């Protein structure tokens, strides 16, 4: 029988002990004594969230295909277990073997959102691995960071031995081969890291020195090691259509956030919304083949027993064979009592027809993400959704029996004025009016509109990376303004307004565009008790403010400052393949309210074409590069 790292008494004293016992369906079982490399993959948040993440499942699959490697998993212990582990000095362990992580060769941490940074420190500390990379010895695992936050890894650079910049499919084998050979040759930790720094896409922070101007901006970032290149090139898997998809994903015992089969139909997005980091850093858009997806769907449902299958992509409606795929799923699995869900579908006749087949109309709601309240501002952010699209879509849906609509907006977008905010209230009201245009006897009760606003956080490698972010005070003023405007609407009683916390967004803004000087703040805040910052009940902004103050850092330097066009950014050393020239051109277009066509309509010359595949070369896409002008 498998032995557990925690005693019965500990497990029965904490909430949801199933988070810590492993043994799930499709878990990899290997004899740790028969492998050369022990790798622990970590999602630094609670189990139910971490287990829902597709990227880890892909890497788990890739790494475990190697006979010489055993890849295991760990997630953040919840606060109850955290306390017990500190009291009893229990080292953090991997779920599979239940062995302490400190004895592993690698600890790979995926960084999906900035607010998990204190959880990263928790993982390191509970594992009894020195928090700062510089304090680690030959005995400690090599700590790797990956995921979207590595597109500006500087605020957490001190805590990692290296970052893997880009998609995990391409280079792990080379890294592990290098490590294994290095160990065999008796190379030191530093020598191995030097070799890894030579692998394309790998960033070893210790091999770079950063200097600053008197005004606090970056003066230079230079390599201090001959093996470390000046630019680190983002890794992109160009053979997505057939490459590595885990057809036997893990199935947790307790209900995870994603309790279903998730089918990644494509990566990247053709749209080019100017606020969206994912839309830029996953370029070029690459589709998986229909035949491959069909095969995956069968295998995954059979191996997991899940009762639901869902599509994953940034914009499912843009998948070129969507109709075929959707019809296949409905015909093939609908009869087998499998529930099918289609997130991120554009609302049109086709999607309404599909949804009426697979959902309970009375219980489900329509979702639109206009992101901005006026057409002017939607042009600024290049969100190609018009008022007409939204009103027509809602009208059709209402006629088919829906009566619930969810709307998502951002506040604090560049150039935003009061009119744009008021537009959110007006649009919400117009949708409600659309509903009441239907004759009373054909309506199904009252309409319900849920309008949510989040605060815009400028991200690296987007056209808005130069933009000034609002202060939390400005956000609150805007929030109150909108609340009052909604109250003025005819259908105010049908509109529910939800908003996000401003402090949290402000901190996210600091981490998103921060530099290496932030790491000490993160360390201090963690030591002061900050953990699970993405959970509002645990977020303690006062502690954070104190940590900034103690370190003499005005955090608004990072958020509330419009950057000059010549400024060197902390993340400029990363070559994502998307040129800074393109991003700047897009920022100027934004200010001029000029729309840029999507990748299928016309090439905007972002630079992703250099990867040699995907949408840039697909038939139907305009091969002409439009480098100097965008069409309005």
């Amino acid at each position: 029988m498998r032995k557990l790292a925690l005693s019965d008494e500990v497990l029965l004293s904490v909430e949801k002990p199933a988070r810590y016992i492993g043994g799930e369906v499709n878990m990899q079982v290997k004899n740790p004594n028969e492998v050369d490399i022990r790798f622990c993959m970590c999602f630094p948040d609670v189990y139910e969230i971490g287990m829902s993440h597709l990227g880890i499942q892909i890497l788990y699959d890739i790494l475990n295909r190697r006979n010489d490697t055993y890849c295991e998993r760990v997630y953040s212990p919840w606060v109850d277990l955290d306390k017990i582990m500190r009291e009893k000095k229990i080292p953090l362990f991997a779920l599979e073997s239940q062995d302490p992580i400190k004895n592993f060769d690698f600890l790979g941490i995926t960084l999906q959102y900035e607010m998990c940074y204190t959880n990263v420190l928790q993982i390191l500390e509970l594992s009894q691995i020195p928090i700062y990379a510089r304090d680690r010895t030959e005995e400690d695992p090599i700590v790797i960071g990956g995921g979207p936050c590595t597109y500006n890894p500087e605020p957490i650079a001190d805590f990692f031995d290296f970052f893997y910049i880009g998609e995990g499919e391409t280079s792990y084998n080379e890294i592990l081969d290098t490590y294994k050979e290095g160990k065999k040759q008796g190379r030191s930790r530093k020598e191995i890291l030097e070799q890894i720094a030579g692998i394309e896409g790998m960033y070893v922070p210790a091999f770079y020195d950063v200097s600053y101007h008197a005004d606090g901006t970056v003066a230079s970032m230079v390599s201090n090691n001959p093996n470390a290149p000046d630019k680190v090139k983002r890794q992109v898997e160009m053979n997505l259509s057939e490459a590595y998809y885990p057809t036997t994903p893990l199935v947790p015992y307790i209900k995870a956030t994603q309790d279903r089969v998730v089918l990644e139909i494509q990566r990247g997005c053709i749209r080019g919304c100017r606020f969206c980091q994912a839309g830029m850093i996953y370029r070029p858009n690459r589709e998986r083949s229909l035949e491959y997806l069909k095969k995956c769907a069968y295998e995954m449902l059979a191996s997991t027993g899940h009762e639901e299958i869902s599509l994953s992509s940034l914009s499912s409606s843009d998948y070129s064979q969507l109709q075929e795929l959707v019809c296949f799923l409905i015909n093939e699995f609908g009869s087998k009592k499998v529930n099918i869900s289609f997130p991120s579908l554009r609302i049109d006749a086709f999607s309404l027809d599909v949804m009426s087949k697979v959902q309970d109309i009375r219980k489900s709601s329509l979702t639109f993400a206009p992101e901005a309240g006026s057409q002017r501002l939607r042009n600024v952010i290049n969100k190609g959704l018009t008022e007409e699209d939204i009103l027509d879509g809602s009208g059709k849906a209402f006629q088919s029996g829906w009566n619930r609509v969810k709307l998502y907006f951002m506040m604090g977008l560049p150039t935003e004025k009061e009119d744009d905010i008021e537009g959110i209230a007006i649009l919400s009201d117009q949708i409600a009016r659309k509903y009441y245009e239907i004759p009373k006897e054909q309506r199904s009760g009252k309409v319900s509109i849920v309008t949510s606003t989040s605060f815009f956080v400028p991200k690296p490698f987007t056209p808005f990376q130069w933009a000034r972010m609002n202060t939390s005070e400005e956000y609150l003023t805007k929030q109150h303004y909108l609340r009052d405007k909604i109250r003025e609407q005819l259908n105010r009683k049908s509109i529910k307004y939800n908003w996000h916390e401003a402090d949290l967004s402000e901190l996210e803004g600091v981490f998103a565009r921060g530099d290496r000087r932030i790491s000490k703040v993160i360390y201090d805040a963690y030591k002061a008790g900050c953990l699970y910052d993405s959970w509002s009940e645990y977020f303690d902004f006062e502690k954070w403010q104190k940590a900034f103050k103690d370190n003499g850092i005005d955090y608004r330097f990072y958020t509330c400052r419009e950057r000059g066009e010549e400024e060197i950014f902390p993340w400029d050393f990363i070559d994502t393949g998307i040129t800074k020239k393109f991003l700047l051109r897009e920022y100027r277009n934004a200010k001029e309210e000029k729309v840029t066509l999507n990748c299928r309509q016309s090439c905007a010359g972002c630079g992703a074409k250099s990867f040699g595949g995907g949408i840039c070369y697909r038939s139907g896409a305009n091969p002409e590069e439009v480098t100097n002008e965008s069409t309005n």
Partner: protein
Amino acid sequence: MKVRIKFQKYGAMKFIGHLDVVRYFQKAFRRAGFDSVYTNGFSPRPVMSFAAPLGLGLTSDGEYLDAELVSSEEPKVMIDKLNAVLTEGFHVTSFHILKDREEHQKAVTAMALVSSADYRVSLKDGYDHVEILKSKEAFQKAFADFISKEKIVIDKKTKTSEKAVDIKPMITLTAFDEKEYRDKLSAKIQDNSQQAFDLPESTAEVYQNGIMVYLQLDTGSTVNLKPELVMEAFYQFQNLPYNKFSWQVHRLEIYTRDSDTGKLISLDHLER
């Protein structure tokens, strides 16, 4: 057709709560390719029901679920198919198709049938802090004193109130080792042939200290006594503070009572 499946739940799976066990078997049925009858609606699930949900932290050799299938293969094939897709800690030991009911007979769920259950309660190693737990003999003497009382009155908490209840009549068997347990059990069960004891190896965890007690307790929707409550009463009788972590409760079997003979029949031997 209705089928009854008996399974073991052991090892780390004692940390999986009842609702998650239900979800687990729903997915397991799909992985095994069972031809289930599904619930209606947009989130169809295989029709199944469980007898006497097991609490968190308990292990068992005698868990039951009733399911409805459109078609079935030979029991042996069905057992193998299901076991092939179960993880360590769940193991199916029997599968049988329930007899078709006469039309006037109402369908009875596994849960509604339950009237009694057997448990083995073992002291975990490292919890012998008190004198009566230092040796097997000391424990057996102390427990025998406790159980020989005419009445064992405890404060039983319900959702709305707390009331004094005599649990003594709900404890229908006690024994200190397997032989004693089997001897006493054979007098109580309807099918006292050897076959009732012809069970697969028990998954109960074995502790070095060897201190344990077998209990047969009234179980079900009308009268229900949990073994933890008996142990708590035992500590109370001994004037000792109760440590809920010190005992491992393992369920051995679940029974229904034959209304004519008053004898017990395991759910597995019913409606064959």
